[in-house]
């Protein structure tokens, strides 16, 4: 794969102000052709603003955005390509289905703009409606559609012209839970099939984990981490990411010593008196650095007795049966651990137990 394809879309030092606040604060990233990238972050962190900047729906205050060798917008070079020249498809949170047109008219619109022959329009519209499973609905007015159907129409309209980029702004957030889970899979399947490079905005972490090739975690207009879903989950770079994605036990600490191959010992006595633990350090961490130790609940193992006397003593505070696992709250000292155990461990409220941390899954991250 050449670099052209590797850096298909490039966003370089993008800045956008709204009045006196910076909604996007100099972010840079690039996407490989055909991949699916998710912008993930809490409400108000600038995801929509980033997407709108790529779509050209507003001007930017600094930076550059280009796709292939086309510059979409560049503050420095004073270039601004209007949205209709950018060749993108976009699915909005409100779907934005035009209520005065039928499903078919909605989907045909981008092709009509491109002045395709009527027969070809018909053929492509039918094909794409079939792809999203709306062939029967073609003649219905948008106002007669259910939420899920509107969603599919919006998707069909976005991909029908085979654009260079596909942008999604929280497309599933208006659907109910069941439909949302079903549409996730569906969306991903369709994206795979058409192979259009996609950027997907959401604040739902499970959506991001399920669908993306790569995830960018944002907060306050900045990028915190960019990695494939597994890495974002298992190797968060800082405290913010580890608590935003999934659930983590976080303990403040200080690096005691560094060992070979990124391992080391961290003193966590501020959280649990007199305790230190072995964990993975990132390369730039030095002895004496303030860090946060992050352990996922499923990576803590529990035993009844303390055979090698390395366990952390604790008392089960609550044990909530969830079906395939038991969600336990275990206190040791003043710290309360979140631990997922197997139902056959049969832990009950009040039990005394010992916790064991696996150094391979215990991570020191920057606070």
């Amino acid at each position: 794969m050449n670099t052209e394809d590797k850096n298909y879309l490039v966003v370089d030092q993008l800045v956008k102000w709204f009045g006196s606040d910076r909604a996007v604060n100099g972010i840079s990233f690039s996407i490989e052709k055909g991949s699916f990238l998710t912008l993930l972050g809490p409400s108000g962190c600038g995801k929509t603003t980033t997407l709108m900047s790529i779509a050209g729906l507003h001007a930017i205050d600094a930076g550059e955005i280009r796709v292939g060798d086309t510059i979409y917008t560049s503050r420095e070079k004073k270039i601004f390509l209007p949205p209709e020249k950018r060749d993108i498809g976009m699915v909005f949170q409100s779907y934005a289905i035009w209520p005065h047109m039928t499903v078919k008219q909605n989907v045909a619109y981008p092709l009509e703009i491109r002045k395709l022959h009527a027969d070809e329009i018909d053929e492509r519209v039918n094909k794409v409606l079939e792809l999203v499973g709306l062939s029967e609905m073609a003649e219905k007015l948008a106002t007669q559609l259910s939420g899920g159907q509107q969603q599919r129409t919006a998707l069909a309209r976005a991909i029908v012209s085979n654009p260079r980029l596909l942008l999604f702004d929280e497309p599933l957030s208006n659907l109910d839970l069941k439909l949302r889970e079903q549409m996730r899979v569906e969306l991903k399947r369709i994206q795979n099939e058409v192979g259009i490079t996609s950027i997907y905005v959401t604040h739902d972490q499970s959506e991001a984990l399920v669908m993306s090739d790569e995830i960018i975690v944002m907060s306050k207009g900045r990028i915190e981490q960019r990695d494939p879903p597994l890495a974002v989950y298992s190797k968060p770079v800082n405290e913010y990411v580890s608590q935003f994605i999934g659930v983590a036990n976080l303990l403040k600490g200080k690096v005691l010593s560094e060992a070979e191959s990124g391992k080391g010992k961290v003193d966590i006595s501020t959280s649990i008196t007199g305790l230190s633990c072995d964990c993975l350090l990132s390369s730039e961490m030095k002895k004496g650095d303030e860090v946060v130790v992050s352990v996922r609940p499923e990576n803590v193992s529990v035993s009844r007795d303390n055979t090698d006397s390395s366990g952390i003593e604790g008392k089960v505070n609550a044990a909530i049966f969830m079906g395939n696992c038991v969600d336990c709250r275990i206190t040791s000292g003043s710290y309360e651990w979140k631990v997922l155990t197997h139902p056959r461990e049969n832990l009950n409220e009040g039990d005394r137990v010992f916790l064991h941390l696996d150094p391979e899954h215990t991570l020191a991250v920057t606070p």
Partner: protein
Amino acid sequence: MAQAIAPVEPVQTWRRFLTQETIVTVIVGLIVAVAVILPLITLVVSSFLVLDDLGFDTEWGLENYILLYTDRVIPKAIFNTFIISSGTMILATFLGVSLAWINARTNCPWADYLEPYNLIPFFLSPFVGAIAWHNLASPRIGLLNVWYRDFFGAEGYLLNVDNLWGVIWVTGLFFTPLVYLFVIGSLRRMDPSLEDSARTTGAGLLRTTLTITLPLVTPAILSGAIIVFVTSAGEFGVPFKLAAPYGWETLTTQIFTKAVGDDANHYLGATMSMVLGVITVILIWVQRVYIAPRSYTTVTGKGFRPNVLDLGKWKWVAFGFNLSYIFVAVVLPIFCLFIVSLHPVWTAEIIPSDMSMNNYVKTLFWWREDSIRAATDGIINSFILAFSGASIAMVLALVVSYMIHRTKGFGSKVLDILCVIPIGFPGIVLAMGVLVTYIQTPIYATLWILLLGYITRFFPYGQRNIASIMLAISEELDQSSRMSGATWFTTLRRITIPLLKPGIFAGWVLLFVIFLRELSISIILYSTGTETISVGVYYLANFENEALTSALSMTQTVVLLICIYIFRRVAGKEALSA
């Protein structure tokens, strides 16, 4: 947990029926029904009564309807009405849509400040507007024509508003806010992503505007256009001032001559009112049934601001356009009225040395010997009518809204329909109905008949004002009061009314304004001693001179402007869009 259940005493049915709620409901329902239905029935019946040659007896027949197209004047009047309504509709729609678009969707400078001024004509009297424009642009004494002759040394005139075009011009200017309000609401509520998605699919700005934005606001434009058509067909003052004296009769001016004066023929008047009424009912029905439901106001719950178009240098053109509208619709007419009113008689020449406030003295100071009774009585009567009318109408509106939106019984459906009927119904038609109904009763020739006409015609405006708020506040607030043991009346007094207070007051001021400038009903129902301000203006225009007329017009305008200011302070920016 076994507990003895006390046997319930079976309440007698008539007692259960006799609650505060049902009593008030039935009484108010009957009042509304009688007030609305009776004049309409009498109107229909009268239209089939034919006056004999001597003018004393009547017999059943269709002669009145035959006259509609055999008479010398009436067919022409119908045709002229059609021309005026169509022309006004085109002008007001063009102005209303472009102003709404400029204000809602472009970066026109100071749009926030322009907005309230765009709405002012909505509150002023078109009749007074016609008087002002007559003094500005009639061929001989029009100020603009005088200046034109002075500056260019030309002969003849530049502008002439004493014809159908003049009527269209003035009515169009005054009814522009009707279209404006419909369209601007629709433009503002539109989800911007509807347009954004068209842009991303490759449609340019022009194409997006034409294929997405315009179709989406079309229902609002059509609604506004229909309302303007109907309202201008029922408008009396403007054609009476600018068209009838120059040989262009309209339906309303003809109805007027049949209602009062020497060759009065109420039955023929009723028949002509039927024409206007039927046209109105059909068009309003089309608007409500076919057009209003098609308005695609997409409310997604996400707060958004509409897309704003950067016009570049053209924004100054847009600004100039908007300013010109305010200038010709508000500033110029008021300026002209003021200038004319200062002269003893208007000779089409501004003579600073002649200027005085004498005309105001004559029309305002009712205690003086030389005061003109029609004017001074008119002012007093109008204030009495506006104050009591607005108060009664709002009480009625409150109870009726409550019954429609809270009680939801059988009566509520009927009431809802009754309240819709008078909306958009030409005042002059309703007044004909009231006249033929009550002419034999003691209330004829008193202020009561005017009050009855005003309230019947306009209380639905107040009702809608209240209903829109009532629908917005949860019914559960009322219900929880009933749960806590309050009676229906206490709930109304302690919970419902306090919540609705801003709406009630806004509605009150709106009706006060409408009543202060009312002409078409008053002109049919007044008699000596029960003139209103607008009738006073009519009297002065007919029997005195332009200068005196302008003085009273100016007075009315100033009072209305003050009311508008209060209305805006009370009701806030959004009040009118409801």
